[in-house]
């Protein structure tokens, strides 16, 4: 199971990748939005890993966890998910400034919130024993809908 540092590193790398892209190229623009969402995903998994939680199995489970434990970030997280889905699956829909005006500010907000929470709560890095203790079988979750 990935540990908190693995998720944090992956999140930072995705955020750096998004920032490194030449946004004058349309294809880069979409991937900057996609990378922003995956950075956000790994920031929230970083927080869950520090709690000793197992990695979320799918988007539905992760959304429930974000609502439960990181509710103040859920709107930003969900919006990034929708932007990312639009960038990946559809041929139009993102404005040319979607990364700068929508994606990046929300990613920064999520990262800052989690950093603040980690500092405030001093969430301990979970030991393998604590992880095992916290583990309980999750109820069956619906398969996330896929765009047609």
């Amino acid at each position, binding site marked *: 199971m990935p540990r908190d540092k693995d998720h944090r590193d992956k999140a930072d790398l995705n955020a750096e990748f998004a920032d490194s892209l030449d946004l004058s190229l349309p294809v880069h623009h979409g991937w900057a939005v996609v990378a922003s969402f995956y950075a956000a995903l790994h920031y929230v998994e970083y927080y869950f890993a520090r709690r000793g939680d197992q990695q979320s199995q799918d988007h*539905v489970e992760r959304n*429930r966890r974000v*609502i439960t434990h990181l*509710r103040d970030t*859920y*709107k930003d997280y*969900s*919006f990034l998910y*929708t*932007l990312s*889905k*639009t960038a990946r*699956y*559809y*041929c*139009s*829909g*993102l404005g040319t400034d*979607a990364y700068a005006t*929508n994606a990046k500010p929300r990613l920064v907000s999520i990262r800052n919130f989690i950093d603040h929470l980690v500092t405030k709560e001093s969430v301990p890095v979970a030991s393998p024993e604590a992880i095992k203790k916290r583990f309980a079988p999750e109820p069956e*979750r*619906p398969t*996330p*809908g896929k*765009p*047609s």
Partner: protein
Amino acid sequence: MKQELENIQGVTGVEIDRQGDRYYVTVTLQDLEFSVFDKVIEQELALFDKYPNKSFNFDIMPEYVKASSLLNAA
């Protein structure tokens, strides 16, 4: 739930597919405008709190995406 979502200005369509205790909610927005998106998520959070034993899976998309999906399906 459907009417409350439809009453949000900027929401152009709501479809709900219920499978037992699971609800798949597709919400179409005129545009990917965060101020509208925000109001839809407020409804999702309210449902999450009100019905903790049910599962609500929201799929929010802009209208042009919905339109292109329909064209592709035709």
